[in-house]
């Protein structure tokens, strides 16, 4: 993967990559982060990962050491911390070529899901992501299913009735909750 040099915004050591992801999100950063697990620095190992962002939302992840992308790259970079992180700003057009590499892409919330314990950050990232980056057809069908409250209520009502009928068959009526 080749990414043109960007403008260095900040360079620091963080204990938790959630800080980096939250910073990128809050600044609506278009650019990339270069992440090096600090233990790798100490050991002279060169594990290094790159996560790119469009308007604060992660687009792709790549580990230069293992040459793996996507979820695998996140796994390669993940460690106990701390991490040395450089955050760069770069034009969206300069990132366009790299962003065509489908094999390196991550879903918007995946870096936060894999690299932090912060569910709230996952949710905020997904909320900030454009519609076309969230989910596919399957998700749409599941959402429609859950949006149909009368259908859900029908499933529940039928299950309640079935539970009561069968409780009688099985002699479990006394264990039923009064309703």
């Amino acid at each position: 993967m080749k990414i043109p040099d960007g403008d260095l915004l900040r360079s620091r050591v963080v204990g938790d990559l959630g800080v980096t992801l939250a910073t990128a999100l809050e600044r609506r950063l278009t650019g990339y982060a270069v992440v090096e697990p600090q233990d790798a620095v100490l050991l002279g190992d060169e594990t290094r990962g790159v996560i790119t962002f469009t308007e604060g939302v992660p687009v792709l992840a790549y580990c230069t050491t293992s040459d793996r992308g996507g979820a695998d790259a996140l796994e390669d970079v993940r460690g106990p911390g701390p991490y040395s992180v450089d955050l760069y700003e770069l034009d969206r057009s300069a990132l366009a070529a790299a962003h065509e590499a489908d094999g390196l892409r991550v879903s918007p919330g995946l870096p936060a899901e894999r690299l932090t314990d912060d569910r709230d950050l996952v949710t905020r990232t997904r909320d900030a992501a454009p519609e076309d980056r969230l989910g596919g057809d399957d998700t749409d069908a599941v959402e429609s299913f859950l949006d149909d409250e009368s259908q859900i209520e029908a499933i529940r009502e039928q299950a309640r009735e079935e539970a009561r009928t069968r409780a009688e068959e099985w002699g479990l009526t006394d264990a039923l909750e009064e309703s």
Partner: protein
Amino acid sequence: MVEAFAVASGKGGTGKTTSTLALGMALAEDHDVTVVDADTGMANLLFHAGLNDATVTLHDLLVEGADATVDDAVYDRFGMRVVPCGTSLAAFQAADPERLRDVVATLAADADVLLLDSPAALGSKSAVLPVVLADRTVVVLQPTIPALSDGLKVQEYARSYGTETAGTLFNRVRDDGGIDRVIDRAERYFGGETLGVVPESDDARSARAAGEPLLAHAPDSPASRAFREAASRLSVRDGASGTVADRFRSAVVPDDV
């Protein structure tokens, strides 16, 4: 104190046994945990816990006139007490589900947390008993229509018996789903909180092949971390073990299946 959780899903293939053992191992860091394979018709926990060769199982305790004691069927594994169930159809047919309540009552005396790996079915008394007997359920879901629909059903069955939902666990979640939009909607219908989102993982399959719980086999995998986080969200309520044991013993369960 003891609280009994039924780990349930209406549908097979959601990774319920993997989830039960993962939650059990994570909770065992702070609690005395006993895990019971209450899926007496389709037992598989023994394979996940390396207990293929267990000589005495739950089945032996459910047969009338059995001379095995509950202790004989308890195996200390991975920091938990594990009660596997055998896989013989004949033994299942000979088993008297009524005896499950006595077994669980006995196990309750020595545990903080009882996890009942429950059948992915609601069609028989033995399948429903774990959710009848438990204090609360953990509903294992996948973000698919069949899994959510069956999860709703098992929740209603459990609630019919006064067993509320402690929380839901989305398991085997693939990278590309809009899982948060699904969760936002699912939370309207399911009780408790969303305990966690566990990614689909090859590690779960290799753990099963190795006969080890996921948390022992691949403790640092994303799925293991997600399970540990889910377990930390599950607050165990204090219940006097005597009260729980009494409740199990007094549960009205006649002897015809």
